[in-house]
């Protein structure tokens, strides 16, 4: 249940209102809290990389941002408006789009049928196809192919195409590289780089930092459900090894000012 009292409000002193903000969010599954007070800001047109080892709470953070998990305390804000507890489908229609871990395509449907799913935002099917095939021409060649028989990279492209066809304002990407060969990951990140250049606000979760730090404007390291460090990718890179190798940090930066 959402706490109706004492929901923190966004920082009013900042000139630029973040397009997405989590303020002191605690959330989890049932009675088990996975996130222990996350403060995160995504500014308009920014790429924010959320890094951390397995089980750090990165995917749960995205689940909160997409409305799939309601914070037990704390708040979520879009353009400064409290949207804590808004249904995930309403957020998706508004323009918050999640590309889930494991692609989230319908494997027994073909490419066209999968793309038809993106018409829920009100775009016509032909519009969706134009947008999808313009970004990923390879999908156009395989439009009648059953999605489950596509290669891992193509399935990920389909997932991205379906998301982009809805013309989101905020894109949440969960573990793009999961189960894919490095060369495919590199190709996919090239697409993300292009998408990022168009000015879309992207919150991207990754376990493997190498590719993502190159394209992020800012990055954060998560560990044990807490956002330990945020800052420019260059400053984060030094902290990464410690986070992954299990070194504990008891520094003032444990709750950085955004």
């Amino acid at each position, binding site marked *: *249940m*959402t*706490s*109706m009292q004492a929901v923190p409000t966004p920082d009013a002193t900042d000139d630029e209102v973040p*397009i997405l903000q989590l303020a002191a969010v605690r959330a989890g599954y049932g009675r088990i809290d996975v996130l222990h007070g996350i403060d995160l800001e995504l500014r*308009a*047109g920014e790429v924010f990389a959320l890094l951390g080892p397995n089980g750090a709470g990165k995917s749960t953070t995205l689940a909160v941002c997409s409305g799939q*998990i*309601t914070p037990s305390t704390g708040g979520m804000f*879009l*353009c400064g*408006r*409290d*949207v*804590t*507890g*808004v*249904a995930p489908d*309403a*957020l998706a*229609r*508004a*323009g918050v789009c999640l590309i889930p871990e494991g692609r989230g395509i*319908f*494997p*027994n449907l073909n490419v066209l049928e999968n793309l038809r799913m993106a018409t829920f935002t009100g775009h016509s099917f032909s519009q969706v196809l134009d*947008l999808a095939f313009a970004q990923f021409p390879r999908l156009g060649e395989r439009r009648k192919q*059953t999605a*489950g*028989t596509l290669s891992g990279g193509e399935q990920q492209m389909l997932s991205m195409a379906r998301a*982009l066809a809805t*013309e989101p*304002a*905020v894109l949440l990407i969960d573990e793009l590289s999961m189960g894919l060969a490095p060369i495919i990951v590199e190709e996919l990140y090239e697409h993300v780089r292009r*998408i990022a*250049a*168009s*000015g*879309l*606000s992207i919150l991207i979760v990754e376990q493997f930092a190498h590719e993502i730090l190159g394209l992020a404007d800012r990055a954060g390291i998560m560990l044990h459900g807490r956002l330990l460090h945020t800052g420019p990718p260059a400053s984060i890179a030094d902290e990464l090894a410690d986070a992954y190798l299990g070194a504990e940090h008891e520094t003032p930066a444990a709750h950085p000012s955004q």
Partner: protein
Amino acid sequence: MTDAHTDANGTMSSSRLSQFEAEVAKLKVTGGGANPERLGSQWGIGLTILGFVIAIIAWWSALDAKGDNAAVSALRAEIFGFIGIGVAIVGIVIWARNSITRYLRYWIIRLVYEQREQTEQLVQALRDSK
């Protein structure tokens, strides 16, 4: 990101941002209705119990009706009894509606996962056979 939503500098246009802000402003904040069906089911069960309690009390009142106004009291109790049964029926409908929605939601998720699993197995088998 059509051209209409991307300006000359390749950045997301302010119109898309404004459109997003307008969409966000329209969002209905439910205050944490993370599981509306469960809440609906609970309301349904509550109403059903309440309805039956009203009906039973009305029935007892009708049985107890004595004296000169017995017929009037019995009629009043009868009306309350019908109201109670009506409330119970509404409760059952609300409970059934939410329970079925909840069941179907889980059923379709399970179906999607099963089919995904089966397709992956099939694709793997086809690749192995080559």
